[in-house]
């Protein structure tokens, strides 16, 4: 090969790197390892994590310990889905493109909005992306009114991005677990690009999106709603509540927890917004012989064509994770998806009642919930969590860091994997922990 190139050594090829910039020593990394050694090393690291097989997990806050059906792994691990690049050559990418089209159809059905993209990175950055879209869609308005019920990670991410696009954010507080409707109406004005809500909100409460959204409609702002995709079998979908954009964290659909990623963000909207949307969108068309096929549609929105005038900078996103969701939703099917939503609501109602009957544990709010709810503890949350962890239970998500006003608050999430017996154990463990702390004090 060197002879064909006309050099004597590979070093000659590196001669274009100026001498002072060449690394004159080996990288300070370990030597290579055999496959078996790497497996052992990674297994050791994994063993030092308390995962959901070791602990009974009531943690949620956007990512949930749902059961991922076996066919999701079987299909997403196929080389043909795992190893291609983004489908720039549609003639040899029909499988991936059709899967995107099916994903878009499923997400459009879930949210009751006509247009869905092929997906973004994850939930919180999708909120920031919606805000960016809203600036363009409202001819340059740069003010956002955001409920404090929106996931703290989403609000923080939006704030980070907003420094770039130069926007102002006004937060509206919660009253009894729900967005303060009067304060929201007051905050929205003619400079507001979007009103951003989440339902169920971070404390688990189901918001009356339609009623809250009226203020957005009145002032010509977009209504952006973050939703939990596992609740839309039972909850009224955002598209029926006046939402212009519905988006959210996709992990509950067919994706494992993975300590936070990779998952995907879904992003759905009204017809008018299609040419402003971020990221890939698959579309149906025909080939020269009239055969049905799929392509990346509306590519002139995208960075590889439009560069600085693109609607967004996103390139590599989360296609395989979106495929996992598509398969999971097909596996659940129309009835299964609804049944799962109902199961979550009923087990959550049971858990909420069971926990609120425990001395030293009371509900943080009485608003209706779907699959997650907040309680207040009569003892320091961290020590209660520690006592529960010692009994093999991850009791929930402490609210104090992100909601200092709820320093005694704990967010408890339910999935179809959390049995009645496990919920009873949680109640028992929380009761014992709070009682023990009371004695300790």
């Amino acid at each position, binding site marked *: 090969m060197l002879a064909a*190139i006309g*050099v004597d050594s590979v070093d000659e*090829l590196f001669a*274009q790197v100026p001498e002072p*910039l060449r*690394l004159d020593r080996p*990288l300070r990394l370990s030597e*290579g390892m055999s496959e078996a050694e*790497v497996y052992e090393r990674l297994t050791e*690291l*994994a063993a030092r994590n*308390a*995962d959901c097989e070791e602990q009974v997990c009531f943690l949620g806050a956007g990512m949930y310990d749902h059961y991922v059906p076996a*066919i999701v792994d079987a*299909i997403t691990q196929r*080389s043909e889905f795992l*190893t291609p690049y983004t*489908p720039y050559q549609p*003639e040899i990418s*029909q499988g*991936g493109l*059709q899967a995107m089209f*099916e994903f878009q159809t499923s997400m459009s059905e879930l949210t009751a909005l006509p247009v869905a993209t*092929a997906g973004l990175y994850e939930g919180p*950055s999708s909120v920031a992306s919606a805000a960016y879209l809203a600036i363009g869609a409202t001819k340059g308005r740069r003010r956002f009114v955001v409920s404090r019920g929106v996931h703290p*990670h*989403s609000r*923080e*991410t939006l704030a*980070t*991005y907003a*420094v*770039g696009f130069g926007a102002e954010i006004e937060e509206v507080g919660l009253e009894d677990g729900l967005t303060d409707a009067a304060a929201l109406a007051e905050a929205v004005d003619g400079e507001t690009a979007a009103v951003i809500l989440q339902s169920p909100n971070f404390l688990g409460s189901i918001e009356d999106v339609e009623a809250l959204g009226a203020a957005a409609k009145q002032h010509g702002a977009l209504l952006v709603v973050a939703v939990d995709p596992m609740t839309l079998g*039972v909850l*009224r979908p955002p598209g029926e509540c006046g939402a212009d954009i519905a988006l959210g964290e996709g992990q509950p659909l067919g994706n494992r927890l*993975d300590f936070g990623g990779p998952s995907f963000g879904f992003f759905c909207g009204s017809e008018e917004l299609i040419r402003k949307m971020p990221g890939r969108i698959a579309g149906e*068309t*025909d080939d*020269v*012989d009239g055969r*049905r096929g799929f392509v990346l*549609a509306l590519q002139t929105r995208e960075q590889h064509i439009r560069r600085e005038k*693109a609607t967004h900078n996103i390139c*590599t*996103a989360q*296609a*395989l994770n979106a*495929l996992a969701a598509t*398969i999971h939703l097909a*596996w659940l099917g*129309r009835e299964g*998806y609804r049944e799962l939503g109902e199961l979550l609501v*009923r*087990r959550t109602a*049971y858990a909420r009642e069971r926990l609120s009957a425990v001395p030293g544990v009371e509900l943080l709010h009485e608003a*209706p919930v779907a699959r997650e709810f907040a309680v207040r503890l009569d003892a320091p949350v961290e020590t209660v*969590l520690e006592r529960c*962890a010692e009994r093999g239970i991850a009791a929930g*998500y402490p609210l104090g860091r992100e909601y200092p006003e709820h320093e005694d608050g704990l967010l408890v999430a339910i999935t179809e994997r959390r049995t*009645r017996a496990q919920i009873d154990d949680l109640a028992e463990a929380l009761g014992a922990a709070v009682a023990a702390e009371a004695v300790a004090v």
Partner: protein
Amino acid sequence: MNQQDEQVLTIFERSKPGRRAAVLPDAEVPEPPLEQLIPAKLLREEPPRLPEVAEPEIVRHYNRLSRRNFDLDTGFYPLGSCTMKHNPRLNERVAALPGHARLHPAQQPKRAQGALELMWLLQESLAEICGLPHVSLQPSAGSHGELAGLLLTRAFHADRGEARTKVLAPDTSHGTNPASVTMAGYEIVKVATDERGGVEMDDLRAKVDDEVACLMLTNPNTLGLFDENIAEIAGLIHEAGGTLYYDGANLNAVMGHSRPGDMGFDIVHVNLHKSFSQPHGGGGPGAGPIAVSERIEPFLPRPQVVRRESGNGSGPTYDLDYDRPKSIGRLRGFQGNFGVFVRSYAYILSLGADGLAEASETAVLNANYLKARLAEGRAGKHTPIAFDRHCMHEFVLSGKPMKKELGIATLDLAKRLLDFGFHPPTVYFPLLVDEALMVEPTETETKESLDAFAEAIDQILTEAEADPDKAKSAPYTTPVRRLDEVKATRKPVVRQPLS
């Protein structure tokens, strides 16, 4: 069966009322009507029309779809700037360990020590590879890393009481660069390329002033050429008070040989789905960690994974540090694409210091060999090398003579390659080269696969000399032939209509 004869149905069109796959657990709790738990006005009336299909049909459907995809495990995929290297299956196995895959992201740090240590080790490894002291793993992909880098730049200048407005990038830059610049609220200023394929120094000098916040550069650039003037470029930008951003899409050329930090860069993003073997998944997931210099470190996203030495000799512990007052804040939920970190760390462990350096050497050798093969014969005549000197890990051909002499465009050559069982190179990029074909073979291809590709190009050009129409109507053997993209954009159908 010939796939072209196959009737294409979506999973929704395979739906029959009453069929299903999932069996759910019993409720085990009281089952009151939902209206007793949630006000009726907040409830959905009709369930979404998801498909009704039994499991065997779901499996068949997606297996059928999979056969309509070309993939890296099937054949050569020389997509320039995309680094389509082999994806070791060990990485999938270790990522799927329950300690990784079923670890909740809000688990207390003391019960996620293995995960945090892995992240810290990956940070340290990337810092060493990039030659920069600090790393954030948070960005989800390359373009997310770019946005992070520009927001860091903004925070850096703001901290010094400056508000600069412009970002420079060469006309050969990836499309994500200017798009990220706009999202970060800056104005993009293009810098010209000189006749050797590097930054045109006079043009750069003319455009550098105290309004310049940052220069974004890929090195080696998208022509596959190392910019020999990089030290001088870095000096110019730093003198003018700007930061230097390294688009790490082409890092696969220089691992263990040259480090962006040593070249003078302040911020680097690394595409774990390129150089560090995370599978591309048909368009993600990836991850775009950033490595930064000391002066940028205070502004890194939060939380940051840190190691704390214990005073009592019991060994270090790992934690998430939120107490970073100058931080730009979060870029996403939780801690990043951890599953990707597991795969990339396994890859780094497998290769080690020598292996990574050798991977880059072989990538450069393969690219130069394939370039030499394509510089001769018909390819050399019809699709000459755009900047003919030794390249790094990729190179660019121009199809301009082919278009003029044979009447076939780069797109036609690309489509004809599909019939020969190859994924085409990146086409029509970089924009600076007419009818560009950007070829990146990577280190995991054999000489035989490179030869076969060169021979396929020769055959296509031979055929085109006799019958140019053959390529113009290609492909012939793929599941579908050329698709009407104009129709898909003019009247977009982006979901299945359902009755």
